[in-house]
């Protein structure tokens, strides 16, 4: 038989391994549930079905499209091929403006309408999110 020391070590190693496997399982599982996918307006047009998961839509804010009301702001995101209407009632970042890149996070109501819960615009006037650049570059 093995000595007591060896036994202890085996138990210890087993515990370590088990906890590692368990934590990785947990992490991957919750990753699956909590990631947010990024789509361009054209990707949305190509969607087969609309699910209720949160998504991000990126592109340019279309010129002359922002309209402000006390309770909400609405605008249009375009990738110069397709467009999507967005409505949003929350605080907007400083660099949110027509003709600039934007990322809106929220829920799709249909292929033409996104109800946003968060607007991201980056803190540099020349900055364009790489996703947006890519989405625009495909045209």
């Amino acid at each position, binding site marked *: 038989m093995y000595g007591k020391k060896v036994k202890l070590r085996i138990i210890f190693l087993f515990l370590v391994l088990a906890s590692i496997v368990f*934590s990785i399982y947990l*992490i991957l599982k*919750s990753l699956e549930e909590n990631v947010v*996918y990024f789509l361009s307006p054209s990707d949305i047009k190509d969607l087969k079905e609309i699910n209720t998961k949160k998504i991000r839509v990126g592109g340019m804010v279309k010129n002359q499209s922002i309209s*402000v009301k006390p309770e909400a702001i609405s605008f249009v995101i375009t990738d110069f091929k397709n467009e999507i209407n967005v409505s949003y009632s929350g*605080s907007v970042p400083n660099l*949110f403006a027509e003709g600039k890149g934007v990322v809106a996070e929220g829920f799709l109501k249909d292929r033409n309408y996104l109800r946003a819960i968060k607007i991201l615009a980056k803190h540099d006037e020349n*900055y364009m999110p790489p996703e947006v650049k890519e989405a625009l570059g495909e045209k």
Partner: protein
Amino acid sequence: MFSQIGYYSLILGLFFSFLIIPILIRNFKNTKIIDKRIFFVSFLQLFFVLISFGGLIFSFINSDFSNETVFNNSHTTKPLFYKISGTWGNHEGSLLLWLLVLTLFVFLFLIKSNNQPKKYRILTILFQQIIIIGFFLFVLKTSNPFNYLIPVPKEGLGLNPILQDPALAIHPPILYLGYVGSSIIFSSSLSAVILKYISQNWAKHIKVWILISWIFLTIGILLGSIWAYYELGWGGFWFWDPVENVSLMPWLCLTALLHCILVLEKKSLLTSWVVVLSISTFVLSMSGTFLVRSGILNSVHTFANDPERGVFILVFLFSLIFLSLIIFFVFHKQTNQFSNKVNLFSKETAIIFNNWFLMYFLSVVLIGTLYPIFLDVLTSEKISVGPPFYHKLIVPFLIPFLIFMSVVPNLKWIKSSFKIINFSLILLFIFSLIISFIILKINSNSTLINTILVSVSFYLFFITIKDFFNKSFKTYSQKIAHFGFSLLILSILLNSFFSTEIITNLKVGKKYSFTDGNIHFKKIETFQIKNYKSIIGHFTIKDKKNIIKMKPELRVYNQPNIVTSEADIKSTLFYDKFLVINLVKDSEFFNVRYQSKPFMIWIWISAVLLAVGGILSLTQRFNEK
């Protein structure tokens, strides 16, 4: 002028790095004492990097736009303070700062390690010089801060206005002191492995460096959070943004190291684990720099993207990891013969458990930060991992972690009995349960998990207070740091449960009413300040108890043409009132965001307490000598 001086002293600095290596190697082989020339050359190296950095600062002060870095990041109308801080507010300058801190630390290490064996000192400096040379080449080859521009432009492009801020002016240098401090830990543990010097003596000596980097990292992260709180206009202090995560990861690793170095110091145990942690801390700091600088992560920290830089740091990083793994596997021998029996109820075991928890938190943050990058590379699918992911994985494990942290720090080394779990502890636990239940009930937020979370953090809070009156085995530094941590968790929880927020779009002169009061937007005033136009909104906010006046500000900067919001924050001991406005399009509507955030100030105070605990421990170390 200053640019040229800066450039040539940088090259001279690199020359001295190459010069010092043969001296080190020769000195390592023969003679018993350290060669005086090493001090001299190391000093010259530091001196020339300092001159080079000074050259860059003066170029910024003089607005010398023949220098490309100055042109890209400065402007004549910028206030002097931000001209200076602009030096390290950009990619090139910040790397020069890295280099400066590296050379400074290696010199400090050299003069402060007199009581250590000669071979160990020389080998550590050798490893450190390899890292320094890597950084020299990186700066000179891919991000030279002294590039020429011909013809010389009349005006610069300006510094991003949101970086023109006092907290952010000192945030990078302090964070770098923490990051770079971990490089000394890395080099020193590698040479200690080679020389089989992983011992109690070594632990005692390296603990000073661990404390130094830990303190700076803590303060650096704190400054970044404070800045994000009042400048970014979201009213939060931690967003689980990848760039924040890369500073948190080395901090978690360093915290684990800080605890288990105690075991090595007192009991000569966990030698391999200490080495692994030392290597990982530095690797995480380096990869943090890589991820931020390469433009893979997108955030306020991202500077111009340049794939060449990314490749260079990646290659450099992998060679360092490879080197350290080889050294670890070839040279490292388990020194302890398991002679010290480890008891389950002892401080040693407790610290191992503490490390388990910290490693779990670390892996959550690591995977959450890296997974989107890998997925993008492999499948070109774009995803983002938001706060729900981290909350879901970290919060449930916080409960056992906090209970554990309240009970076990009073365990003794080697062996303790169950007696530590006594009547008063149970009484305190019931007391904290009741308190948190009442608090949550009053504010109608009492879900089971929230109640448990708040009770365990109250429990830890009371226990850490009780410990101040106890003649326990803890030192004051530990008591303060642990108290700070419990306060931090408690105020974060209460803050996140009881924050309220109102967002609306208002015209000047209009009122917005909510359940307990209203927001009145009275008027706006505009002023022309040196490099921006200031628009100040005058608001009165009425809530249940009182009426307050608030004046949030919008700044329209001339160069670059950017609008920033300056939130108006009224802080009291119990809550912060936070108001920020923003102009949407050119319409008459202002986007108004009003938040009431309880215990905000305690989050900052508790983080400061953590650092104070570290500083106290450091001063104790110095007094012992």
